[in-house]
């Protein structure tokens, strides 16, 4: 047995360490440890603040999935104060959310994940003429995936972004890579395990095409976020408002935040999203994924095979509250549920809905700290976010010193990430989880499918045909996790067009309101209020819980996607999705566990999100001693 450490895990947000125990003879991973190695305490910082400011603080939990914590936060405060936002604000927030999905997923695929599948060194061996031929073939072979997507506006005459398929184009990229390699300054490509056998799975031409698109999409990705810049003023970290949005609409004034010119900018950007997803992202994804599956890489599903959870998204119209159940009556993306045992087949899987009351029920969602560097009075039990406690309790590693680790202590505490559980059980979250929930809920007849749910089914069926495998075989795998993310980017782009049309229609009907300021004044608030704000972030189910007392935040808790996926094990022995995935992934070269890294990357880990945690109910935020001590009461 060998114990292999990868720290830092790069091409993620934040700081993550993994340790695996590998059987050197078989390459089987016997045990795996995932540890979040940072903690910032943002919820503690939120306490005592004005609830209307919370979105700005919470948004800084993460700058990669920027905007999502702001969205969860405004929803949370609005739920607590019973504020219903105007229609336009709902459509605009949905477009901002959809734009995040497209951007985040695409950047993850090309810039954080691609180099686990393709290599610039292999690209040097490609024939540029053949690469151009291949590009054309792939567009023909997989292009049908674009047809599952409805175009609600039909304003684009023809695609403005189309993959170039000329030898000269690929030769230019190849020469640039060659120059970088020859210079000895490999930059971002330096020091990686390029000699790993998995880089031989794809023909060199696929490597060259994908590396060229890696660079091409680095230039294009910025345009995908233009809707957030128009509606929220900047990106990363656009501006939101409790009660709606600030981007007032007027067709009488060029100084207005939103007028015809601004809407045209948004519309153009949404079509760019569609082209980037349909013509680049999905084609490359299918080309690579298809070969990996053909070469037998249908592992890495781990926890996804056993249990997944989602919260639901895209409210079609404004709603009166989340814990009231109204939110879930309005959503179009019915990924709100838990599905168990999907790997046994969609008919045998078990489906449990997740609706408003489940988020207020103290027994449904709980967090444990038995193996995290925090203290609870009774660590055998979990706590609901409204009752959460976080008192840091750093205990150091199993081997090494407190400030210089060799190996972490999985029998004791080993991570700054807590362990969220659904009725005491671990769940995987993310695009894969959401696709499993929608697919199961629809196929088993639990929901009346919306156009979005139907699109998800069509996407899954199309890919199943391509791979010639049923969904329960290919979806809960590393390839499936990466594929679901790409498909969801397409869903997001389609949703953006849908909500832009609704925005146009509503403005046409004479409604220009973007903010409900009836309860802007704290004097209109109850003395005490509790709220929950939920969304399905790019990386998975996200919830914020707040308690407001006397106009101030008394308690603020976030249970975020990478906490679900990357969290430590629970006192009952349940392991999170990262650890389960690693245990479901064989390793070819023990000291270069590329397959494990690829599996971890397939979750798109976000550590700043997962380890922001904190809080203690009802006590004052004081007695932080300077340097060395950290007790927060």
């Amino acid at each position: 047995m060998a114990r292999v450490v990868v720290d830092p895990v790069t091409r993620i947000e934040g700081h993550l360490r993994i340790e695996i125990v590998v059987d050197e003879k078989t390459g089987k991973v016997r045990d795996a440890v995932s540890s979040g190695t940072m903690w910032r305490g943002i919820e503690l910082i939120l306490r005592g603040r004005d609830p209307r400011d919370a979105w700005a603080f919470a948004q800084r939990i993460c700058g990669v999935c920027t905007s999502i914590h702001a969205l969860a936060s405004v929803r949370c405060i609005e739920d607590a104060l019973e504020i219903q936002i105007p229609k336009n604000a709902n459509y605009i927030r949905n477009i901002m959310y959809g734009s995040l999905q497209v951007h985040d997923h695409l950047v993850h695929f090309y810039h954080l994940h691609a180099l686990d599948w393709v290599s610039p060194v292999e690209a040097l061996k490609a024939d540029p003429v053949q690469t151009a031929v291949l590009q054309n073939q792939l567009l023909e072979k997989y292009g049908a995936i674009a047809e599952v997507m409805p175009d609600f506006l039909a304003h684009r005459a023809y695609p403005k972004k189309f993959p170039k398929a000329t030898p000269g184009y690929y030769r230019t990229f190849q020469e640039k890579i060659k120059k970088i390699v020859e210079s000895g300054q490999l930059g971002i490509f330096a020091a990686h395990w390029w000699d790993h056998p998995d880089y031989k799975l794809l023909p060199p031409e696929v490597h060259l095409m994908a590396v060229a698109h890696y660079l091409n999409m680095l230039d294009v990705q910025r345009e995908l976020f233009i809707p957030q810049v128009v509606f929220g003023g900047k990106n990363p970290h656009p501006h939101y408002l409790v009660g709606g949005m600030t981007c007032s609409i007027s067709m009488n004034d060029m100084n207005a935040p939103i007028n015809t010119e601004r809407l045209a900018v948004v519309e153009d950007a949404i079509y760019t999203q569609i082209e980037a997803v349909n013509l680049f992202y999905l084609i490359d994804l299918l080309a690579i994924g298809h070969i990996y599956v053909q070469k037998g890489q249908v592992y890495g599903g781990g926890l996804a095979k056993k249990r997944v959870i989602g919260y639901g998204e895209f409210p079609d119209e404004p709603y009166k509250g989340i814990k009231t159940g109204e939110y879930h009556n309005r959503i179009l993306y019915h990924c709100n549920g838990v599905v168990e045992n999907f790997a046994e087949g969609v008919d045998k899987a078990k489906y449990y809905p997740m609706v408003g009351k489940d988020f207020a029920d103290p027994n449904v969602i709980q967090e444990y700290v038995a193996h995290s560097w925090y203290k609870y009075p009774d660590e055998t039990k979990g706590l609901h976010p409204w009752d959460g406690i976080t008192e840091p309790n750093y205990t150091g590693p199993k081997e090494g010193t407190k400030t210089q680790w060799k190996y972490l202590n999985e029998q004791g505490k080993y991570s700054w990430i807590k362990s969220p559980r659904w009725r005491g059980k671990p769940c995987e979250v993310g695009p894969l989880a959401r696709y499993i929930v929608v697919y199961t809920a629809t196929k088993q007849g639990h929901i009346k499918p919306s156009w979005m749910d139907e699109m998800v089914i069509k996407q899954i069926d199309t890919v199943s045909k391509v791979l010639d495998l049923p969904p329960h075989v290919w979806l809960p795998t590393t390839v499936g996790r990466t594929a679901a993310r790409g498909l969801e980017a397409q869903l997001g782009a389609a949703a953006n067009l849908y909500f832009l049309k609704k925005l146009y229609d509503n403005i046409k009907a004479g409604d220009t309101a973007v903010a409900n300021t009836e309860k802007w004044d704290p004097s209109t608030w109850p003395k005490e209020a509790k709220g929950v704000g939920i969304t399905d972030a790019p990386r998975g189910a996200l919830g914020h819980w707040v308690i407001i007392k006397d106009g101030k935040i008394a308690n603020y808790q976030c249970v975020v996607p990478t906490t679900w996926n990357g969290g430590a094990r629970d006192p009952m022995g349940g392991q999170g999705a990262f650890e389960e995935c690693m245990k479901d992934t064989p390793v070819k070269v023990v000291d270069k566990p590329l397959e494990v890294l690829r599996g971890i990357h397939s979750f798109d880990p976000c550590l700043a999100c997962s380890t922001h945690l904190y809080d203690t109910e009802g006590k004052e935020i004081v007695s932080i001693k300077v340097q060395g001590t950290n007790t927060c009461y």
Partner: protein
Amino acid sequence: METFWETFKRHGVSRRDFLKFATTITGMMGLSPSMIPHVVRALETKPRVPVLWIHGLECTCCSESFIRSATPLASDVVLSMISLEYDDTLSAAAGEALEKHREEIIKRYWGNYILAVEGNPPLGEDGMYCVVGGRAFLENLKESAKGAKAVIAWGSCASWGCVQAAKPNPTTAVPIHKVITDKPIIKVPGCPPIAEVMTGVIMYLVLFDAIPPLDSQGRPKQFYGNRIHDTCYRRAFFNAGQFVERFDDDGAKKGWCLYKVGCRGPTTYNSCGNIRWYNGLSYPIQAGHGCIGCAEEDFWDKAPFYQRLTTIPLPNVEASPDKVGAVAVAAAAAGAVAHGVISKIRNKGGK
């Protein structure tokens, strides 16, 4: 900057050993032996500026902003202007291999590489609130700074402390100048900084091989010389006394001044008003939200954000803008002077 060959010579490495090194790395890069002469030539020519980009406690919004740059495009910066040898977000490699590479770059380019820092170190729990490669980020930061030619403090985290350093600062997070005291630090504050400001700073370093002119607080004058208020397209409405009184009111639809709903434009130095975000597309005020002052020190503790600044007197009539401007400038200047004195003392202490 020295070429590899010059560095080798300086360290007394023979031509023979240099050629051996070239042969080895040719093999390591998976190239055929026929490429050796090309590699030798490359090692003899001027290298791109090596950059180590390390991450402490942060949210990665700075990296995200950086890749949003349109002019120059991030791909041109990363592949042609600099050599980004270490970056938690973009580096292909991970784990020990990457940490070893960092150490090697520090040695190889001692005194010649740029250290870019995103985020900041926590001092609490011996720095173990932020661990990289099994030890505190704080150690990594100190070690990486030692041989750097200059240090860039990306964003408000590295420059001022930002959100994790807001009260009660549970991890005792500090800006990097509290830890690195003997190197020039270019502060590029903002949460995040504007993309083109970030790449603009790098452009300057590469084009002129020098640190851009800085103000008394260490910020590039080019980008932080103006208050947003002075460059804001809504300034005329402030002068005219035309204000948004409540979000989404008539004034909001007309794009009037947001000062009364909390705008920090009058006390914030940044380029949002002139170069704006996304190559001039917009900025928060244009989207109807006041500036929250994200490029200023301790801006989080100057919340609530929707409460108007009380230090800036309102113009009574349109004739008084000069007076208003003068008061605001005086208030900000007093702050800048105080900072200047503090940073001078600190610099002395450092030397």
